[in-house]
Every structure is written in structure tokens, then in C-alpha cells.
């Protein structure tokens, strides 16, 4: 069976500090990978998706970047965090680009 991991589970960072969130998927090969952000009172918003190693597409302009150094690893980064970057960050995977996506446990980021 497939499993998706995210870490850390929670993170408190000061404004202006860097960020690195990691997501890994087990039990499947060549998954499509996604980063979403869930802000209080708002729906999930897609930030990035990747169809393969080194292939990243951004859905919205922002202070964040993503990378996929290995087939089943997806990283979300920032050089300098803003207060508005606070939120619940979710990684997801899918077998194809159409169809259901499966979410990880999430990372709660608080920027102070």
C-alpha cells in the first residue's frame, strides 16, 4: 500500500527565516506530487505540482518554491518567510493527472 509522509508536523519560525518542508511517498513509483496550503476560513489552494523529477509547475506567484530531487520526494522552500506564509501545508500524490489525490498528514507552519 502507498504511504505519504510529511515533516515536520509543526513549525514555528520568525519572519525572514528560511523554510524547508519535506514530503515523501512510499509504495508507488513516478507519482504526481502536489503542495497545497490551507488557510483558516479558506479552501485548499494548490501551490505547486510536479509530474516528474526536476519538473515543477507553479499555480500562484508567491514567496515559496518547490523542488523534486528524487522520484518520491517533494520539498517546499522559502528563503525569507512572511507572516502571510502561515498556514497548514499539505502534500498530496496521485497516479495520474486526472483523478483522486491522496493527502499527507500536513505541516502546521506559524510565522511569528
Amino acid at each position: 500500500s502507498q504511504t505519504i509522509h510529511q515533516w515536520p508536523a509543526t513549525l514555528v519560525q520568525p519572519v525572514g527565516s528560511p523554510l524547508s518542508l519535506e514530503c515523501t511517498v512510499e509504495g508507488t513509483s513516478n507519482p504526481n506530487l502536489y503542495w497545497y496550503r490551507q488557510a483558516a476560513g479558506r479552501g485548499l489552494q494548490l501551490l505547486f505540482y510536479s509530474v516528474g523529477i526536476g519538473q515543477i509547475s507553479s499555480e500562484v506567484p508567491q514567496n515559496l518554491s518547490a523542488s523534486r530531487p528524487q522520484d518520491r520526494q517533494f520539498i517546499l522552500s522559502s528563503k525569507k518567510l512572511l507572516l502571510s506564509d502561515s498556514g497548514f501545508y499539505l502534500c498530496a500524490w496521485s497516479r495520474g493527472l486526472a483523478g483522486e489525490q491522496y493527502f499527507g498528514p500536513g505541516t502546521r507552519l506559524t510565522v511569528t
Partner: protein
Amino acid sequence: EDQVTQSPEALRLQEGESSSLNCSYTVSGLRGLFWYRQDPGKGPEFLFTLYSAGEEKEKERLKATLTKKESFLHITAPKPEDSATYLCAVQGDSGYALNFGKGTSLLVTP
């Protein structure tokens, strides 16, 4: 632009009191409509995918239905463990994102 509206925002039910959650959507070329369950502080858990009007799917006390403009999640004889936020999402032919509604927060009391 794809849009998803869920109602009600919050719903409180007595154990055993059946009800329905609504998801209204507009999308260009529906690839799929998805229902998820999300517990506090956790990632969404996949429940159902519906692809075309008239389709229905069931899982335990949950049944999802789809028309050309909306989907319903029917909850029959709910139990307290069904308490969660239920999210609806659509995927259209314009991209790969799942476009989510804001969810319905369901509380089932004993």
C-alpha cells in the same frame, strides 16, 4: 473559473438523525468531483470520486450523488465518530488542481 460552494457551513445532528450536505459547482469540462473527510489537524482523507451525472457511490453510512450542477453527501443514521469537516472538490479540464470548497463542519452528538 471553477467554483465550488458547500452548504451548510456547519451542521449539528443528533446520533441517528440522517441529513445531507450540498456541494454546488461550476466547472469547465468536469473530470471528477471528489469528497474528502478532514479531522482537526489532519490531512483530508479521500472518500469518493464521481465522474458523471447520475452516478452514486456508497461507503458505510455515506452515500454521494452527482447531478450536472451539484453533489450531495447523504449521511444515514450518523454516529459521533462521523463528526468531521467534509470537503468537496472538482477537477476540470483547465488544469490539474483540485478546486476545493470551504467545507461543511459536521458535529454528531450522542
